[in-house]
């Protein structure tokens, strides 16, 4: 098992390297001259000054030299500077990534627990009241846009009831854990709702499929309790496809939560990516893209490990 994990982890390195090449050249292929972004549209700058500016940012060297310079710096821990504000990219990431992680992991945990539990209960009580409630939640969660749900939540819990803050991540008066946590509740919940319904559907279907398998009959015929049939025999088999959904939601939660971040004015990384893209801040774009690629790779390794733990056929290399 240790060897299996090590092998999977080592595979990340060459893949990240390839992705870094793609990211770098793709952005530079767009032909958008980074220097032109620096100059206000109504200012006339001489060609010499432009060249000087280019030389200053190292943009006059051949592309491959620039690439190795960039990747070399990254390996040394220097992610470069934003060409818009001059802040180092490392600082931007250090400021926004924890906020994003907070939200993403919170949503992931909440939606996994609620989604799987409801899905399993729906499957066990198929066509019963629990199942109908579950199916209603599933339809609601998938069909309601996130921003709409977020606005409703703000309207009810922040404006009408005044229980929770409208947005933001923290304020100067923050002391206790609850002070911080109350900022998290609404955005996490909003982020979770769509995923709860997806997970509910998947775990319900997966569980129903497993419950029809012959080995469930074998298990029942041993005389064991229904609880044991469901948890020991069915759930572990039903979880495998559900795990794929959960794990591959992670990069999406990290890179794609622009809507949530703007509805709740949450200072996360998606906002930074959107800002950098519109202002052509290529050092920020490149590093954040690389970061999301890394999240996807780590997620897929994580998925391999979890799958192997759940299923001996994968662990022992028969599939």
């Amino acid at each position, binding site marked *: 098992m240790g060897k299996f994990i090590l092998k999977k982890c080592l595979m990340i390195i060459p893949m990240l390297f390839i992705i870094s090449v793609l990211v770098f050249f793709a952005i530079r292929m767009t032909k958008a001259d980074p220097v032109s972004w620096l100059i206000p549209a109504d200012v006339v700058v001489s060609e010499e000054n432009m060249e000087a500016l280019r030389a200053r940012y190292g943009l006059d060297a051949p592309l491959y030299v620039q690439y190795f310079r960039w990747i070399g710096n990254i390996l040394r821990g220097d992610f470069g500077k934003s060409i818009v504000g001059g802040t180092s990219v490392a600082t931007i990431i250090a400021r926004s990534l924890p906020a994003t992680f907070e939200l993403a992991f919170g949503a992931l945990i909440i939606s996994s627990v609620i989604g799987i539990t409801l899905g399993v209960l729906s499957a066990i009580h198929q066509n019963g009241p629990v199942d109908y409630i579950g199916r209603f939640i599933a339809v609601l969660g998938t069909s309601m846009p996130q921003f709409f749900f977020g606005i409703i939540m703000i309207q009810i819990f922040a404006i009408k009831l005044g229980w929770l803050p409208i947005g933001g991540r923290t304020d100067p008066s923050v002391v206790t854990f609850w002070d911080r946590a109350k900022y998290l509740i609404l955005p996490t919940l909003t982020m979770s709702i769509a995923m709860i319904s997806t997970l509910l559907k998947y775990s319900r279907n997966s569980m129903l499929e497993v419950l029809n398998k*012959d080995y469930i009959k*074998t298990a029942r*015929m041993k005389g064991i309790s229904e609880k044991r049939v469901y948890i020991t025999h069915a759930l572990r088999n039903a979880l495998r496809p559900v795990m794929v959904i959960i794990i591959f939601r992670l990069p999406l939660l990290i890179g794609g939560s622009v809507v949530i971040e703007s509805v709740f004015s949450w200072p996360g990384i998606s906002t930074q990516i959107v800002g950098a893209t519109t202002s052509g801040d290529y050092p920020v774009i490149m590093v954040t893209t690389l970061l999301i690629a890394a999240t996807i790779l780590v997620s897929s390794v994580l998925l391999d490990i979890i799958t192997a733990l759940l299923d001996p056929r994968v662990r022992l290399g*028969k599939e």
Partner: protein
Amino acid sequence: MDENIILRVRKLNTSFKTEDGVIPIVKDVDFDVKRGTILAVVGESGCGKSVTMNSVCRLLGKNAQIEAEAIDYMQQEEDGSVHPVHMKDLTNTSKEMRALRGKEISMIFQDPMSSLNPVYKVGRQVMEALLQHQKMSKQEAMAQVIEMFKKLGIPDPENRVNNYPFEFSGGMKQRVVIAIAMINNPQLLIADEPTTALDVTIQAQIMELMVRLKEEQQKTIILITHNMGLVAETADEVAVMYMGRVVESGTADQIFAYPAHPYTDALMRSVPVLGAMEDGKELATIPGQTPNPKDVTDGCEFANRCDKCMDCCKTGLVGNHEVEPGHFVRCHLFDGKGVRS
């Protein structure tokens, strides 16, 4: 009640709720299983043999409706006394039902490829059944599992208990399934087409194992099959089912000597016999197809495929007639309405 009977089923009716309404699958099924014998339940696919047994063990889904006049299991205590358990009054998941499963009645399923949980070691899966019904440590239980593997002819049992199902061949998997069924030493073993998914040589080994269980340990076995050859070799009693009804029942000798029901007769004639076929002669088949259970209306279910069909067969219920002691046939040919051909 006769002490020799281990399972008595009277007027078992099982139907399924579907989108097309309630469809009866098992109709008025009666049978007795004698202690220490093999009863073969024979019939084409879809005739309700498996549903009958799954109804007895309460393994059907929520859309199944099971009604019966009696499903009585005669439980024999260690001192030899016998008392009946009225299984028709038990719910699917009741304690009493679970106490019977595995301990008194066991089942072997058709496809060994899918009847073991793929994610657990086989030893653990057998042990689970043992620990459910008997108080002992895991070490003691594992020792018993290894012992059982040895008895069932699984080579190298000490190491094999730590393998996963996918590391076993089909025949070996079926032995593990049998080990699960046998580990608590139950009195009644229901084998639902135990050899259908296996190749012929393995088939013979598994059947030999079953016959040995009956002869050496006086187990009772209900063998569900559509293989007439197997029935001839192993069964003591036979019940032939068609479209959810038992159409003929009796001892194996009676039925093979004198297949009274036209369906049984047709079944026997459609068994290929190696070397006994005349050159160029075609194997007899039963004309037509088994009807869809939801289309069956009135009269004898076999009427539209029967070469001896009479007018009276097309309406009303057909009674059960004893053509010789212990040999029952559900056919108008024997009730005087029609003349036996």
